[in-house]
């Protein structure tokens, strides 16, 4: 089970080892499973394991004022001590971002969420940590299936709608305590 506790308004980190894992408004509350019905705790476990294996620390932040992954990760990266953020929408779409980049630019983007496997989440976590260390990892191979967007169109629209319902334009990013 995924347990989420909100701690308060998030402040920029000072630890150079710190990676921010930024999540979307409905993550773990409105939505607890990804678009492929994978429990979100399984995804987080792999992502965190990847970061920990590389010797970096992580902090969870929930961004409430946008459902756009580019905006979420941009805010997350500005809070990260290392300047690197991996952001995720509840449906599983993931991006790795560095704070000097403009919001829609990225280090690595994984757009077709139904195709991301747990092994890939582990590698995404690993690569995020490596960027944090200033290393240059080989980008994670992205799978592409042109049927996916149409096949999951309705489900992803509904999930995004739910994200929107949980969003709050006035709210600053909140630190999270996550247990899984």
């Amino acid at each position: 089970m995924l347990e989420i506790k909100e701690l308060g308004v998030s402040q920029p980190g000072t630890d150079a080892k710190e990676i921010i894992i930024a999540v979307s408004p409905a993550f773990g509350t409105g939505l607890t499973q990804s678009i492929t019905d994978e429990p979100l705790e399984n995804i987080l476990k792999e992502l965190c394991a990847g970061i920990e294996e590389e010797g970096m620390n992580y902090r969870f932040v929930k961004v409430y004022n946008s459902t756009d992954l580019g905006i979420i990760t941009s805010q997350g990266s500005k809070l990260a001590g290392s300047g690197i953020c991996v952001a995720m929408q509840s449906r599983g779409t993931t991006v790795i971002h560095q704070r000097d980049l403009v919001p829609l630019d990225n280090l690595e983007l994984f757009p077709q969420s139904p195709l991301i496997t747990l092994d890939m989440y582990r590698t995404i976590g690993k690569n995020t940590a490596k960027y944090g260390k200033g290393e240059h990892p080989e980008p994670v191979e992205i799978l592409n299936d042109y049927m996916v967007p149409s096949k999951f169109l309705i489900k992803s629209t509904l999930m995004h709608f739910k994200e929107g319902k949980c969003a709050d334009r006035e709210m600053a990013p909140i630190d999270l305590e996550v247990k899984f």
Partner: protein
Amino acid sequence: MKKYVAGVDIGNASTETALGLIENNQLVECVSGIANTSGIKGTYDNIKGIEKSLKDAAKKMGIEVSDIDLIRINEATPVIGDFAMETITETIITESTLIGHNPDTPGGIGLGIGETIRLQDIGKAEKDKAYIVVVNEEIDFVDAAKMINAALEEGVDITGAILKKDDGVLVNNRITKVIPILDEVASIDRVPIGMPCAVEVADAGACIEFLSNPYGIATVFGLNASETKQIVHIAKALIGNRSAVVIKTPAGEVKERKIPAGEIILHKRGREYNARVDRGSKEIMDVVRKVKDIEDVTGTKGTNVGGMLEKVRKQMADLTEQDYNTVFIKDIMAVDTIVPKEVQGNLAKEFSMEKAVGIAAMVKTEKLHMRRLADAVSAKLGVEVEIGGVEGSMAVRGALTTPGTEKPILVLDIGAGSTDACLLNAKNESRPVHLAGAGHMVTMLINAELGLNDVKLAEDIKKYPLAKVESLYHIRHEDGSVQFFEDAIDSKLFARTIVVKPTGWKPIKTKQNMEKIRAVRREAKEKVLISNIIRALEKVSLSGNITEFEHVVLVGGSSLDFELGNMVTDALAYYGIVSGKANVRKTEGPRNAVATGLLLSYLEELENGR
């Protein structure tokens, strides 16, 4: 009497023109033109490039191409080179002696010695024995940590762990005792169970000390002197690793095997001189030096060397429309190198740096069909075209226009396939030499030693300096200097080592750091280019003593290399030789030497009563 004369040099990469206005046998004005060579040198395809290059020059002079009275093209030295690499050692692991595994992030620290046991079977462990647990992919890192903790609590002596997945740090962070943990062992099912085993992990940034020492391994497994002798290769393979495992199996061993790589046979006046490739480059080059004027070179059939030598021969035969059997290889050059190769019988895709020999060959034939090309150009442009002279001696004449040079002078042209040198002595006699091994060989060495499998990238690494993108607003150049930028750098280049090309940056996809890439690049240039320059000097020198030269001038495209000029100056200063890049006609740098030479030799001919 006004006369426009153009010297045109058709090179492998560019076609260069020197256009001169001659009045009363005196050169009044001179301009240059340049265009890319179209097609393979010496074929009709070149005409387009020649025309373009002439137009470029004519425009600067303010005339039309048809106003030119005479075009002189060079007698191209028909030289072609190729390169092959032969690995001469391979590391083989028989049975299951796991060696030299070097994952990025092992867990824990220290040296653990014990018997291998599956983590699932830890319940069956005896109390008075030490164990190394073997964990396959079925067990998650959280469960693995729990099981190890439980066993430790029960008093089982676990001294180390071997994991299949990349979980080393994760398990280490969750267990109560610090033990060395080695992860990412892909073929974990081949790790023998119930065998004595040693696992060593060093601190970050350090190397293992115990298992990379033959006596260390002997201590662990209680080996006698003759057994210790057999495990030297294991210890050798582990040097420089951050982590390692050694397992003693009854019949297992690691050995370095020499691959039969064939022989190179040098022919001279009916005699044969043999050099074995697997003995390394020194022996081959000793034989080459001894034989001096090689008549032909062949290789053992069925080996890489044999195939490569025949390929060069065939290419040249096709190009010159000559009989295959009358094409002879006139020079070879060999260099030692090391290439990463997967270890035979490995458990986790270990690589071992194997010895290899790179061999370049050079073929010379009678003539390319330049006369034919000259007639075709003449027909196309309506201008008289003649063959001016041999490339080498023309280059010398052009290079002599460099301020600060005098006869005797040696001109070096390092091309892609061959290194050409030409000596002009005080009596105006020239002596050309052509040697195998040049730019292409350097590219191949860089490609192989860094394990890139990308020739284009290797070519870029050869040509341009490196830098590391440290943030999106600054890069650190290979000399340590930092450059800042106003606009953000492309996010795809973040944290990467890049090649700084004038046309843009290119990321290098390799794990090796910038210092290593730079060292490989410089070493390759040193091994091939610098030693070839010295070889060229030895060949043209009558006494064999290269200190007799005073001036060595570099011409041609490759002398535009950003560091070669300085490397040559540095190397030859040792022999008291003045060397450096040419500056043709005080303005052209190392370019346009041959074209200028063609023009100047026309003036010489006029003086001698043409």
